[in-house]
C-alpha cells in the first residue's frame, strides 16, 4: 500500500485553517511595564534596531542587533574561551558596537543549582546588580550562558510576583548605588545568532553541505519559563525550540534527528564537579552514543556552556570502556564563525576542546595543520615577549 506522504502536510494545513488561539499564559512583560508605571523600577528598553522572533505561544520577542552588554559565562571564559571569543568575533565581523564589561559578576546560578549555598534574595540581587551595571553603561544585556538566561527569567518572575523580595533587592541596590532596572527582554546570545543567521549565511566562505549536525538544546534555555523561548513555525512545525537548528540549516549544513533530543546532557551543576560518574554516564549513554548510532553526525552543536563542557569532556573516559563515542562538540557560535572564515585556533580556540575535532575541520575544508602552524608562531611571539597579548587584528591576520 503506498505511503501517504501528504498526512503531515494535510494536518499542517488543517491547523492553519483553525486560526490563532489565545496564548494560555500571561505575558510577564506586561507586568514588568506595569511595575515601571507604578514607579517600582526602571525598564531598560530594547534599543533600535531590533529583529522580531516568535516564542512558544506565538508572541513576538525583540532581539536588539547591536549595542549589546555582554554578560559573560564563567564556564565559557574559564574553560572554553573559544566560545566567548567566537561570540565577540561574530559581532565584530558585522561591525556591530558592543560593550565587554569588567563591571560584571557571574550570575552565580551554577553554584546555586549545584550547592544551594545562596538564597532567593542573593540570587535576585546579583541579577539586578548586573542589570543595573548594563543600564549604567547604556548597552543592553546579551546573556552568554543558558543557565544565566534561565535563572534570570526565573528571577524576573519572582521579582514580579513578590513585593517583599523587590523591596529587599531595591534596598540592596540603593546601598550599592546601582539603579534598580529590569530589561524589557531577557535575551540569550543564541537568540541573537538565530535572529542574525541570514547575515551569517551571506558571509559564509565554506561549503557545509556535507556536514551532518546533531543539535542538543540546553535544558535551561527552554525548560525554565517555557513560554519565553524561540519556537519557529518553519522549524519542526514549531513543536521544538528552533534556536540552533535554524542556524545550522541557514548555514547549509544538515540537521540530523535522534531519539534523545529532549534529554538533558547530564551536567548536573554539582555532579560534573564532584559526582562525575553520573554526568559522564548520562552524557555518554543517553546522548553521544545515541547520536552516533542513529545520526552518525560530524559534529554536535549546542548553545550552552555546561552542555558543551559535559558532552565534550565526558567522551574520554567512555573510550576507555569501549563505548561508541568520538564526536566533536562545539557551540553554534564557534561553528558559525568557522563558516565565515574565522581562524580555528585564534578565534574558535579549538585546542581547549577534548574530543578529536581535526577530521571535522578537514571535512569543512579548513587546513588545520597550516592554521596550527600560524598559531604556534603566534605563541612563539608571545613567549619571546614581542607582544604581550593576541589582539583582534592578530586574530584576523
Amino acid at each position, binding site marked *: 500500500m503506498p505511503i501517504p506522504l501528504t*498526512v503531515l502536510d494535510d494536518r499542517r494545513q488543517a491547523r492553519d485553517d*483553525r486560526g490563532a488561539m489565545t496564548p494560555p499564559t500571561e505575558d510577564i512583560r506586561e507586568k514588568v511595564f506595569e511595575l515601571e508605571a507604578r514607579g517600582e523600577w526602571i525598564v531598560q528598553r530594547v534599543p533600535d534596531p531590533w529583529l522580531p522572533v516568535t516564542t512558544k505561544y506565538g508572541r513576538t520577542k525583540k532581539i536588539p542587533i547591536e549595542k549589546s552588554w555582554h554578560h559573560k559565562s564563567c564556564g565559557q571564559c574559564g574553560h572554553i574561551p573559544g566560545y566567548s571569543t567566537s561570540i565577540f568575533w561574530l559581532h565584530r565581523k558585522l561591525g556591530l558596537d558592543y560593550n565587554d564589561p569588567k563591571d560584571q559578576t557571574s550570575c552565580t546560578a551554577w553554584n546555586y543549582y549545584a550547592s544551594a549555598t545562596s538564597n532567593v534574595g542573593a540570587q535576585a540581587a546579583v541579577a539586578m546588580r548586573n542589570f543595573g551595571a548594563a543600564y549604567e553603561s547604556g548597552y543592553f544585556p546579551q546573556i552568554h550562558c543558558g543557565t544565566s538566561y534561565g535563572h534570570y527569567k526565573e528571577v524576573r518572575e519572582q521579582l514580579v510576583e513578590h513585593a517583599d523580595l523587590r523591596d529587599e533587592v531595591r534596598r540592596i541596590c540603593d546601598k550599592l548605588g546601582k539603579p534598580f532596572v529590569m530589561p524589557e527582554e531577557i535575551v540569550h546570545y543564541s537568540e541573537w545568532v538565530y535572529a542574525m543567521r541570514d547575515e551569517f549565511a551571506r558571509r559564509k566562505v565554506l561549503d557545509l553541505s556535507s556536514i551532518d549536525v546533531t543539535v542538543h538544546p540546553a535544558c535551561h534555555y527552554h525548560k525554565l519559563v517555557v513560554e519565553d523561548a524561540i519556537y519557529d513555525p518553519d522549524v519542526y*512545525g514549531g*513543536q521544538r525550540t528552533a534556536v540552533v537548528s535554524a542556524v545550522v540549516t541557514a548555514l547549509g549544513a544538515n540537521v540530523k534527528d535522534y*531519539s534523545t533530543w529532549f534529554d538533558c546532557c547530564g551536567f548536573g551543576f554539582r555532579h560534573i564537579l564532584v559526582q562525575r560518574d553520573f554526568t559522564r554516564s548520562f552524557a555518554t549513554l543517553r546522548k553521544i552514543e545515541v547520536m552516533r548510532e542513529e545520526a552518525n553526525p560530524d559534529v554536535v552543536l549546542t548553545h550552552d556552556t555546561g552542555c558543551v563542557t559535559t558532552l565534550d569532556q565526558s567522551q574520554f573516559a567512555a573510550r576507555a570502556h569501549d563505548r561508541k563515542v568520538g564526536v566533536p562538540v562545539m557551540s553554534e557560535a564557534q561553528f558559525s564563525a568557522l563558516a565565515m572564515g574565522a581562524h580555528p585556533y585564534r578565534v574558535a580556540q579549538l585546542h581547549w576542546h577534548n574530543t578529536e575535532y581535526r577530521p571535522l575541520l578537514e571535512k569543512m575544508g579548513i587546513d588545520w595543520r597550516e592554521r596550527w602552524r600560524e598559531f604556534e608562531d603566534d605563541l612563539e611571539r608571545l613567549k619571546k615577549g614581542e607582544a604581550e597579548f593576541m589582539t583582534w587584528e592578530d586574530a584576523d591576520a
Partner: protein
Amino acid sequence: MPETVLVIGGGPAGLETARAVADIGARAILVERRAILGGTPDEADYAALTPHMGSAQDALDVLRAGVARPEVEVRLETTVTACRGTVGDFTLTLAGPGGEEEVGVGAIVVATGFSHFDPGRETQMYGYYEHADVITLPDAEKMLKEHRFVRPSTGEPPRNVAFIQCVGSRDRRLGNEYCSKVCCGVASKEAIEIGRLLPDAKVYIFYIDMRMYGYWENQIYWPAQEEYNVNYIRGIVTEIVAKDGRLLMKGEDTTMGRPLEVLMDVIVLSVGMEPSRGTREIAGVLGIEPNKYGFIHTPGEPMDPVSTSVPGIFVAGAAAGPKDLEDTIGMAGSAAVRAVRSIRGVTPTGAGAAS
C-alpha cells in the same frame, strides 16, 4: 403567530432542540454553517458511539429526519453575524448563500459545539506534526469507520497501539483546567474496535485517572480489560520521538515507580474538547458571557444547565463545555422548553429561575 426559536448549529444539540421546539407547537429556524447537517460527529467521521457501539451516522440520520418537517426551517451554509433586541423580540442578521437577511425570533438556542484540541499546542512533546503515526482520536475514528486500522506511514496494520489520555485537558499550563469527560470512554471504545479488527495487536492505554461514569464502568472499561486484554497503565507519557522506524514513548509506570520507554507502531492522542470557532464567535455576536475557557457560561447551574447570562438565550450541548451525547440530548430538550416558555412570557418559579 407561533413562537419562533432560532437554533444556531446543526449538530446533535441543534437538531434535537429544533425537533423538540416543533414537538411542543412552536417554530424553529435552524442555522448551520456547513452544507450538511450533523455537526462534529459528521465532520469528523465518527464511527461507533460510546458505549453502545451504535453507528454514528445512523444516529445522525434519525436526528436529521426529526427536523424534516414544516415547523423547522433549515438554513444551510448560513451563519449569524449580528443580533439586537430582548427576549420575545430579537432581530438577527443571517449571512448565507443568498446574501444577508434579517429575521425576527422570540428566543435563541446556541448549539455551536466544540473543536477537538490541536495537539500541536500540547505541553508535552508528542510530535503530532512530525510523526505520521501519531494520530488523534478523530483520526482513528475515520479509519474505524472504514473498518480498517493501519499505520499512516506504511499502510500496514500495527503490532501495537498506545492511547495517551488527557491530551489538552487537565493542564494548568495550557489553561484547559478541566476534564473533557468522554475521552476515557471513547479511547476504550476505540481500543475495543481495534481489538476486533486486529486480534493480534497489543493495545495499551496510558492514563492518570480512568473516567468511567455510571454504567460505562461495566459497559466499556471491564470488557476492554476482560474480553479484549487492553492494558491500562497508570502513568502519562511525556515524549514521543522516532526510533528505528517506529515511535519511542517515554513515560512513567507509576505502579512500578520507574521510568518506562517502549516502542509503539501507532500512538493515539486522546484529545479533549475546546470551544469551537463558532462558539467563540457567537458569544461576542449575541452578547452572552463566555466562561474563562471560551465555552458559554451557564450561571444557573446545577438546576438550570441551559440558561446563559442573557434572558431568552439558551445553550445546548458542548458549546457550554465538555458533554457526552446523553448530556447533549438532555440539554436540548430542556433548552427547547425553556426557550418557548420564555417567549410565552411565563416566569418560571422555583430554583434556577433565569429571568
